[in-house]
């Protein structure tokens, strides 16, 4: 299948020229980064419609990542739930086992064109770090990954994976020592080495143009799903469900569907242990607008505007912000956002493993649980797609502890 970025961009119309999604997004960065994000925006806009770039991107997606991946009909899960037909968009089948690599490939191809040889990235669970280390190794680039000290312990196998691929993993010991602090530290590195460094951000977050660019690179998920579902059912699905941390798999999945009003879109956040601040990472459910990491977006924060500590059983959803386009889609009502607790996510993980022989990532398991509840209320003639954003091998230690 040919990879095209353009349709998704036209479908959503956003962001505007200043990088705003309605009131959200923007470029809230220190002056020193303005030339860097301007250079990045110019470079990205010049390749966005360049057939040679798109051909190259498509080539690696197909030959290295293994795309297109399947849209699997989950017949046993469907039967068990007894409602809408459930389909799984299999991002877990990608090389490195998650959707993250789509975006990394796009960004590092761009970095290569820009002549930047030093790549930095942040990672929470380690999936984006591993994907960045992977593509950097493939392209022969230097790679430094910032990871919260706490996450290097929780996800030590991913640290070994990155090191095996010649990436340097720097444990971040500041703040809450998790994903948001890894992003802070990556930005500090970028500020210091702004001339020769490319910051490969892992989600639809950060200053413009990142939320737009990452969405575009991930929109391959939604584009494939659209045509695969048309082929299977002869029409569009009634509903689509994806998990949302920063929100890149969801945004990539939703992008081509936003204009199709008949398709209901659902984003699922981490409800954690409880609805108390500090016990969850459900930014759109409980947060208020604020400014962090270069963007105006919903944030989990105190009355005084200090960013809150967050919790989720899945390290990948453990982020107090969310992509600005999600904030806009929430306010416009186009996407419905809900949350699923740690316990429910584990149930979703067990259910999918037992019925379909697919162990989803704990992040994805949030979407699985929510989708099952939704499918139950839908008719058997309808269909629903879950974005199966990643596989669960990385989470086996955590899962073992909770079973």
């Amino acid at each position: 299948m040919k990879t095209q970025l353009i349709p998704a961009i036209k479908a959503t119309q956003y962001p505007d020229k200043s990088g705003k999604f309605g009131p959200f997004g923007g470029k809230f960065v220190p002056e020193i980064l303005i030339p860097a994000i301007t250079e990045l925006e110019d470079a990205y806009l010049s390749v966005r419609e360049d057939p040679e770039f798109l051909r190259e991107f498509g080539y690696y997606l197909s030959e290295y990542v293994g795309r297109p991946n399947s849209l699997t009909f989950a017949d046993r899960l469907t039967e068990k739930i007894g409602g809408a037909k459930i389909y799984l968009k299999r991002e877990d089948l990608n090389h490195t086992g998650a959707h993250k690599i789509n975006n990394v490939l796009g960004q590092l191809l761009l970095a290569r064109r820009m002549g930047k040889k030093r790549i930095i990235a942040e990672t929470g669970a380690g999936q984006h770090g591993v994907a960045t280390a992977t593509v950097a190794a493939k392209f022969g680039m230097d790679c430094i990954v910032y990871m919260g000290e706490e996450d290097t312990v929780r996800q030590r196998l991913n640290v070994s994976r990155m090191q095996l691929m010649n990436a340097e993993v720097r444990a971040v010991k500041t703040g809450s020592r998790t994903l948001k602090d890894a992003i802070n530290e990556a930005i500090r590195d970028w500020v210091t080495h702004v001339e020769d460094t490319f910051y490969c951000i892992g989600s639809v977050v950060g200053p413009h143009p990142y939320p737009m660019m990452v969405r575009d690179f991930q929109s391959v998920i939604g584009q494939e799903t659209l045509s695969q579902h048309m082929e299977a059912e002869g029409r569009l699905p009634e509903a689509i469900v994806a998990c949302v941390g920063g929100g890149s798999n969801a945004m990539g999945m939703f992008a081509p569907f936003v204009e199709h009003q008949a398709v209901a879109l659902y984003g699922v956040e981490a409800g954690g242990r409880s609805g108390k601040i500090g016990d969850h990472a459900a930014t759109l459910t409980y947060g208020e607008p604020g400014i962090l990491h270069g963007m105006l977006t919903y944030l989990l924060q105190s009355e005084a505007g200090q960013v809150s500590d967050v919790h989720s059983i899945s390290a990948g959803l453990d982020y107090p912000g969310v992509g600005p386009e999600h904030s806009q889609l929430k306010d416009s009502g186009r996407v419905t956002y809900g949350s699923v607790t740690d316990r429910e996510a584990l149930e979703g993980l067990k259910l999918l493993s037992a019925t379909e022989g697919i162990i989803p990532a704990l992040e994805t398991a949030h979407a699985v649980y929510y989708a099952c509840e939704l499918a139950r209320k839908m008719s058997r003639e309808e269909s629903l797609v879950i974005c199966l954003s990643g596989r669960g091998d990385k989470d086996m230690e955590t899962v073992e502890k909770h079973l």
Partner: protein
Amino acid sequence: MSFIRQFFGNMRKANQKVLSIYLPAGYPTSEATLPLLDTLVEAGADMIELGIPFSDPLADGPTIQRASQQAIANGTTLLQSLNFLRLFRTKHPQVPALLMGYANPFFRFGWDRLVDMAAAADVSGFIIPDLPPEECEPILSRIHSSGMDLIFLATPNTPPERLRLINAKGRGFLYAVSLTGVTGARKNLPPETKAFLQRLRRESSHPIMVGFGISTPQLAAQMAKEGNGVIIGSAVIDLIENSPDLPAARKTVFEFVSQVKKAMG
């Protein structure tokens, strides 16, 4: 004319360089802020910048990160900081006092409410490092019409056309970031700094204050020559951090700031 612009005009006439010191509000304790501000003025600081702590200070090095965390742990709020500034300005009406902080605590407080309350506290201006000219519209005109200034930063990689934009939007003075990097005391500044400051002097009509990395009286004196003055933050915080108590902190800060002021001539 804003107070800051009058102030720079007077300093220029008196052939004086300006020493501005950054201090995080509520650090090391809430009780320490006003006494430390007094010490700074007694030692020769001409201007002060009171920092509002933020959980994610991404343009700051380890010193200010630690201080910010401490200040947040002490329960420092924006309202309390505005009150510190009000008391400070009453006591030292000749010393400009700026509010410095990341955008989010201000945004959460409400831009309009912030500007109105700052004006009531006789605050002289604002420095908001993650609010570049393209994002300043919600606050800029209200700051100006209240007689205060919004200070923008220029960095060694700022291209000429962008500097024109910064010159046009900014008022008061131009904050010249001496190096590509985060805040924090450095032993030396890169050799390119001098050329960068000369370029700013040529291309900007605003007074130029040099900040980031200035740690010694010698460096301060060198940098002050290239502009209208210098800004010091981390070096002072390092001294406070290494002091056993407030009197010791005041003593060592007084000595350092006096030496810097003297070296600047």
